[in-house]
Each structure stands twice: as structure tokens, then as C-alpha cells.
């Protein structure tokens, strides 16, 4: 589903990623672990197409097509979603209205009938239950006055509504209390199936207690230095990262 070949990425003329290779098949969950500054977030930003993340070499393909020339919204419509580490507050833009606009953009892309306000409300309320989120958050501006946990639930709600094929979870566990962490993990586990993949980016092993990645990669200084099964995460928890540094 996602293939990254020899990816080099620069931010402000500084190379952050120096040759990443990664292949995620449909239905797989991969975890990328690494310390702060190792390039984890750069990788997710390069996949989603954020401005100023310049790919200088290599390629990213999604469903066998290069996405490098695609706008962020075209990548999203193709089926890529990122749950943000720090979801942005958008003053004055109503959460339900925004979510409906996003879902309808996707429906339009797929050639399906768009939701009217009433049908969408029914649809979104069924999803709210899955993330145990209070309906009052639908009435607010996007992420405005949300706590850290509420923001992450809102990201999860968007994921459930937009139904991406590849979901990138960028440091989803950071700042979450245990209840919220369990709810998010349950959401991920329930959502995952044979045709949906996850790329989980995390600093700690904490989230991996609740979800089971098929492959764990260790990122150091912009390179994947080791890949393995779930046990690699436990090993990192025990020994830290220094034994992998060259």
C-alpha cells in the first residue's frame, strides 16, 4: 500500500531523513520508534505533504502511484490520514461543519452522494460513541478549548468518519491519560482490518501495550537502523536506544 524508497528530506536546507526504505502492505500495522529529533515527525510530514518538507531524493508511492507531486488534500482524498501530534485550533470554524465539509469532499471524490446536515449529524453521532466523546464538542470551533485528550479523540473521530486506508498516528499517546489511551487504542484495533493499514509513530513503548504492530522500526538520525517484530519495542524499553547507535 505504502512504499518509501531511499527517501531523503530536507527542512530549511538541512537534511533530516537520509535514505528511508519502508514498505507497508494492506492490513499491516507498523510502528516507528525513535528519540526526539530522529526524524519521526519529518517522515509523517513528508508523507502527508506539508510545505517546506522538501524531498530531495527517492520516492513515496501510495497504491502504486507516486504522491510527491500531489497536494496535501489530494493525498488525503487518495486515502492517507494523519492524526496530528498537536492538532490545530481553528477559531470560528464549527467542528461539525468542518467534519462534514471534509467527509463530503471525500464523498465527492468517490462520486458518492454528499451528506446533508441532518443525515451527517446522525452519522457523526454514531461515531462519537466509539470514541466516547461528548456531543458538545461538535458545537465548538475545531479543537478550541479542547483538552489534550479531547483533541486526540477528535482526531480519532475524524479518522472514523473519513475512513482512510492508511492512518498515520503521530505521537498519539503523548499527553494522554490512561482512559483516553485505552479508548484510542480500542478505536485503532477496531478500525484495523485486512485492507486498512497503520503507521504508528511513537517515542515510547506505552501505546504498544494496547496495540500490536506487525513490524517495529527504529529510526536514528534520519535512518532506519533496525526493524523487527513486537519484541523489538520491549527490547528498546529495556535497553534504550544507545546500543543501536553506530
Amino acid at each position, binding site marked *: 500500500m505504502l512504499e518509501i524508497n531511499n527517501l531523503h528530506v530536507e527542512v530549511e536546507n538541512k537534511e533530516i531523513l537520509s535514505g528511508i526504505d519502508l514498505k507497508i502492505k494492506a492490513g499491516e500495522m507498523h510502528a516507528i520508534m525513535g528519540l526526539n529529533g530522529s526524524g519521526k515527525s519529518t517522515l509523517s510530514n513528508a508523507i*502527508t*505533504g*506539508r*510545505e517546506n518538507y522538501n524531498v530531495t531524493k527517492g520516492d513515496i508511492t501510495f497504491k502504486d502511484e507516486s504522491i510527491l507531486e500531489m*497536494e*496535501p*488534500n489530494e*493525498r*488525503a*482524498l487518495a486515502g492517507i*490520514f*494523519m492524526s*496530528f501530534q498537536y*492538532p*490545530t*485550533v*481553528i*477559531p*470560528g*470554524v464549527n467542528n461539525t461543519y*468542518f467534519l462534514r*465539509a*471534509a467527509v463530503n*469532499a*471525500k464523498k465527492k*471524490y468517490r462520486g458518492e452522494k454528499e451528506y446533508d446536515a441532518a443525515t451527517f449529524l446522525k452519522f457523526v453521532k454514531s461515531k462519537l460513541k466509539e470514541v466516547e466523546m461528548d456531543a458538545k464538542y461538535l458545537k465548538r*470551533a475545531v479543537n478550541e478549548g479542547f483538552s489534550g485528550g479531547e483533541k486526540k479523540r477528535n482526531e480519532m473521530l*475524524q479518522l472514523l468518519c*473519513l475512513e482512510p486506508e492508511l492512518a498515520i498516528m503521530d505521537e498519539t499517546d503523548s499527553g494522554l491519560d490512561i482512559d483516553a489511551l485505552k479508548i484510542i487504542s480500542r478505536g485503532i484495533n477496531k478500525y484495523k482490518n485486512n485492507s486498512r493499514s497503520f503507521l504508528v509513530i511513537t517515542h515510547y513503548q506505552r501505546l504498544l501495550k494496547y496495540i500490536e504492530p506487525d513490524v517495529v522500526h527504529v529510526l536514528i538520525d534520519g535512518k532506519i537502523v533496525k526493524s523487527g517484530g513486537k519484541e523489538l519495542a520491549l527490547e528498546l524499553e529495556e535497553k534504550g536506544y544507545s546500543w543501536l547507535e553506530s
Partner: protein
Amino acid sequence: MNVNDYQNEFNKIISRKYFPSRLNNSRQKAFSKFLDIGLPTKKWEDWRHTDLSFLNKNNFRISEANDAFENIDFSKYKIKNTHTLVIINGHYVEHLSDAPKELRVLTNHEYLEQNDWRQKDKKDTPFDLLNTSLCDSGMSFIIDPDTDIDKPIHILFICSGSENLIISPQVNIDISRSSSATVIEQYASETSSFFQNNCVFASVKENASLNHLRIFSNANKTINISSSYIEQSENSNYKYFQFVDSGALQRSDIYNSLKGTNSNCFLSGLTILDDDQQSATYITTDHIMPNCTSSQNFKSVLNNKSSGVFNGRTIVREDSQKTNSKQSNKNLLLSDKATMNSNPQLEIYADDVKCAHGSTTGALDNEALFYMQSRGLDRESASSLLIRGFVIELMEEIENKDLRDYLFNKFDNWLIKNN
């Protein structure tokens, strides 16, 4: 237009027989004072950011009776559920108007007669002096005590006919004791170029309430310079909303005096500009008596080479204890070439007061744009949502739904062109 050109127009006014000659003395006085001080230059503190070159380069003449056309399509100005009063080139057109019976509509001549020919005080800025000396039109609207007018009164000021007219109306709005009304002044032009220099006096008496909206939607070569003087008595409420979406230069000077205790004055406005349009809003809220509340809440969205000024001044005088006052000015620049000058000021001479002010100016938030794009919205839809989000809170303060819808419609049309 130079001083000699103003002199020519002044001579014409003085010689016109249908203006009451007993005003000639005050006209003369004002005009000689104008000659003394001259037109503002950029060296004047309050005019530093107002570019008058368009006015100075073009000539304008006072209107003649045959300038006023009535074959105007009024439907485009119609606001649902309002009483529309039509004023063409500063003159009230009764047969096109539907004034509510509770509203007394007087000519300024009649109004002055009723008030022993007492002229109202102005600040004597060059344009106020020109308004006094060249005043050729305007009307007075009076609501008697204990009268509530349910539907908004929509006063439509239209400039029609030949180009390059100078129109100097004076408008009086008197809301008597324990009365209430919503008054919308809308300025529009059927010609491409004119100069309107007006003065509005609103008096909100004891226990009365005035909801005042002003819509400035003029043609691109229009100059609108406007002074508003608002006086409030005790227990009165004054709410003001200003909407500016066009014009070569829109300059509003608003002076609000809280002369009675327990009064409220809420001023707000939205300016949306394009091309090289210019808008400047200068406000003075003067707290003279204790226990009053005031706010100034203004926003602008500026595109291309347009420019804006917000100069909000709140004075809290020694006797006005327990004043509660807020100032906020927020501006969104959609282009690198747009400029905004923002200057909120508090002058506090009392010690037991609550005052706050703030100002921000910036471009669209790239983080928010990326966030929205990453959810599948194209950049245009994302920025449109963001710009609308920027103004929505302000617009929702307009309680009357028909007015709010009318202005939202204007805003959305502007947004389609400017996003």
C-alpha cells in the same frame, strides 16, 4: 480639489436662494476657519495614514436638482422586513419611502426651527467645517418618547446622476426618552465617482436604545468622509455596527459621549477591502459619568494593496468610576502588499475601573490551512473557511437575522472574488 475649488462651491451655496439665509453666517464662519487651517496633510497626527491624494487630484461640484435620477433599481438595496427611506443626493424622496408612522421625518430646516436654530457642536476638523459651510442636504429623524419601532428603519443614501459631485448632508437621529429603534444607514452610489462628506448626530435619551448600523458600499472612485457624534443620557444603550466593503477612501470619525450614568455603548465593525481601497476608522469613546460600559471591537480583512486604519481611543474621566471598557482590533492580511495601522489607546483618569485592550494583525494561519487540507479540503475551501471563521463571531453579534443575512451575503460575494 484645492482651496479655490472649495471656494467656488461655497460661493454657489451662499447664492442659492432656497437655503435659509440665516444659516449663511455660520457657513461663512466655518468656511473662513477652514481657509485658516486648510486641508489635512500627512503631518497631522490623525491624518498620517489617510491618503487624500485621490480627493486632492479630482474636482467635485455641488449637485443640481437635475442630477437626481429616480429610475434606480432599488431591489438590490432591499433588506427584508425593514422600512426603507430613500435619500438621493442628500434629498429625501418621500414617494419612494415607507416611513413608519411613529417616525417623524423633518427637513434640517424644520429641525433647526424646532431647536431655536441651535447648531450642534462639531470638532471643527477641516471636513466638519466643510460640512457646515457646504451643507446642502440631509434629514432629521425623530422618535418621540415611549415609542418602540419594531422593524428596522433603513435609510438609503444614494448618489446618482453626473459624476464628481460633492454632497454634504447632515443627519440628525433623536431617540427620545424610553424609546427604541434600529436604524440602518446605507451609503451606495449609482455613479462611479463622488465625494460625500457627512455629519451624523445621534442623541439617545434617558432609558432609550438605539441599534445603529452603517453600511458603506460605494463605487470604487468614491470618497466618503463621515463624522458621527453620539450623545447618551443615563440608562441608555447604543449599539453600533459598521460594514465597509468598498470605496477609494472611507474615513469614519466616531465620537461617543457617555453623558449619563449606567449607560452602555458597544461599537463594532468589519472592513473588507480589495485593490487599492482605503478605510480609516477613528473612534473616541468618552466616559464622562460613572457606571458605564463600553466596547470597541473591530476587524478587517485586507486583500491586494488595500489599507486600513483603526484608531480607537477610550477616555475614562476622573468622575467615571466603575467604568468597564474593552477594545479589540484584529486584522487579517490576505496579501503581502496590504497594510494595516492599528492603534488602540486607553486614557484613564479614574482609579476604580476595568479596562482592557488588544490588537493583532497577521496572515492566514498556515498550520490551520495544512490541517484542513490534510482532511481533504482543497486550499481554496480551507482558506475560505478560515476567513469566514475570522469574521463570524463579529457578524453574529448582529441580532436581527435579516440584517445579518444581508451582510453575510455581501461578505460571501466579496469572499468569492477575493479568495
